[in-house]
């Protein structure tokens, strides 16, 4: 069983919802990332999504675009990202890491090469936002061989037939994109999301994560009501941006934001237990 599946299994046994923060690797400085990963775990992260910076992040809103630009200004490449994961694993063997990004840096490295390096670094899953299942036969096969989970997205526009196809390809968990739009854009509508998740649960046994549009403890708790995992990205990345000139305060500030969501989710989990 993969580290991701293991994580969801034990959370479920405890009646808890997973909290998955996203940060862009190398933002705002390369050396900040690994200590920040540890701080996120301490603040209650169950799984971490680590963004591979890309020059053309066309599925992302301005907040994550700027994070990519800050990281690329420091020449943070996919190779550096893998090294960061390896360094993180020196002290943490438990928390699953999912790399999130776009196809081209992985294409440039080569699927086989990427899989070997990612496995060696301790990566557990990978989500390439611009590669739908239709285009990922070879990639998925190689990731399977290396026991790295390929995470796929389901969107509000995804038809029930397509949900079934995606579910058959997905590993680890399925990431439901709660709104039509880019990351960090609008607030989500919980009842709308809830309907879609119900459709999706008919097609899969995998845990369902919900991301896009979660910005505070309240929205995190509301989503934890219906999902197995709450993914939060732009809110944290905006906090990183605000602390780009105060790096000594940055990990505590970001961790504080995440801890607030953790508490809100835990309170909700307890209430419903």
């Amino acid at each position: 069983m993969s580290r991701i599946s293991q994580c969801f299994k034990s959370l479920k046994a405890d009646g808890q919802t997973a909290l998955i923060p996203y940060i862009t690797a190398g933002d705002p400085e390369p050396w900040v990332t690994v200590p920040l990963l540890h701080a996120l775990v301490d603040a209650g992260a169950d799984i971490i999504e680590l963004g591979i910076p890309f020059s053309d992040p066309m599925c992302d809103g301005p907040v994550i675009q700027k994070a990519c630009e800050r990281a690329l200004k420091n020449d943070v490449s996919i190779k550096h990202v893998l090294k960061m994961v390896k360094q993180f694993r020196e002290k943490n063997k438990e928390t699953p890491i999912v790399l999130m990004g776009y196809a081209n840096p992985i294409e440039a490295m080569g699927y086989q090469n990427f899989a070997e390096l990612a496995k060696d670094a301790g990566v557990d899953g990978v989500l390439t936002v611009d590669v739908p299942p239709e285009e990922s036969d070879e990639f998925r096969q190689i990731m399977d061989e290396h026991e790295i989970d390929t995470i796929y997205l389901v969107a509000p526009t995804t038809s029930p037939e397509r949900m079934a196809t995606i579910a058959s390809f997905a590993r680890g968990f399925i990431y439901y994109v709660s709104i039509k739009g880019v990351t960090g854009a609008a607030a989500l509508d919980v009842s709308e999301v809830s309907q879609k998740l119900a459709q999706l649960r008919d097609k899969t046994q995998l845990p369902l994560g919900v991301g896009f549009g979660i910005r505070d403890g309240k929205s995190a708790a509301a989503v934890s009501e219906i999902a197995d995992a709450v993914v939060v990205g732009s809110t944290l990345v905006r906090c990183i941006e605000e602390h780009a000139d105060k790096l000594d305060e940055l990990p505590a500030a970001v961790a504080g934001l995440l801890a607030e969501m953790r508490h809100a989710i835990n309170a909700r989990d307890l209430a419903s237990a």
Partner: protein
Amino acid sequence: MLEQHIHDYFKNFPDSRGHFGPYGGRFVGETLMEAIYELEQAYQQYRDDPDFLAEMDKDLSTFVGRPSPLYLAENWTQKLGGAQIYLKREDLNHTGAHKVNNTIGQALLAKRMGKNRIIAETGAGQHGVATATVAARLGMECVVYMGAEDVERQAQNVYRMKLLGAQVIPVKSGSRTLKDALNEALRDWVTNVDDTFYIIGTVAGPHPYPAMVRDFQSVIGREAKQQVMEKTGKLPDALLACIGGGSNAIGLFYPFIEDESVAMYGVEGAGHGIETGQHSAPLSAGKPGVLHGNRTYLMQDENGEIIETHSISAGLDYPGVGPEHAWLKDIGRANYVSVTDDEALAAFHELTRTEGIIPALESSHALAYASKLAPTMSSDQTLVINLSGRGDKDMHTVAAMAGLNF
């Protein structure tokens, strides 16, 4: 290898998943997948629909002014002393370039799909103007994304779009040029996917765009084939066209692909020279990767990050190229070459003075390569160049090169 791929080319490429060999495909976020399937279905339905085709033909004839003439450049032919040079006069189209062939097709499709909001990306502004033009005529809302840098460089085209009723949004992210405008248009589409039709300006993007835009632009090659047969009684020996994304080139090449005797040359922008790294020639100096919905040759660094391009002509200033060109390169059906800014500028002046035709700087790249190729051919051979646009929009660039400012 070549013969095997060219046999039944029209039937086989792209395949049902939009692949040209390893290139093309559908690389977009999940939110857009249903939208591109919906588009594909609509396109399949209407591409052979007599009413749709009749409406398009009528617009191409009375609104655009087609067929565009095939002009024998006698003075220039004589001067170069080789092949007979014919120019396919896309510069005479309404709005001044080949772009409008495609925007009419896509806008009519949008109308049939019930989408009343049009978005587009533009570099130099030609595709933006062509989109704003058809949107004005069909009474559709139109939003054009343009790199902030290009908005400054192409103030006149920005004003044209605004006159036509379009909203022009300057894109300030990334390198602030065409590729960033494309990113922003995709972000708009993902946000407004229910009522919005994205008119992509070139033979790139996710399937079905590369095939659909090619089909709309193929009117260039179909006409050229008929016209050159009428004038010379035989197929041409070579075709030339400039390549940015590659829509004017594929438009000319496509109807000739199975005619193996016809050589094809796609001319990329070598900018300050391929060796300087400051160019926009992914087929000549890039390698395959994934960007903007398709797999193709890209200008990228060793980590897969897209690098900034340079060309004197904004229409060629793009780090990717249509996936069908990537395939035609790999199977050896078309030749991809490049000329520098300086060579293109020299050809611009040459055609202006010898033939009284002011070409677009994009098209001047094809002309520059023709001036090398024609003298190596004999006078009973013919060469057709796609004169894809007129040079009016380039006055300030050319003047600035001569130290003048308007």
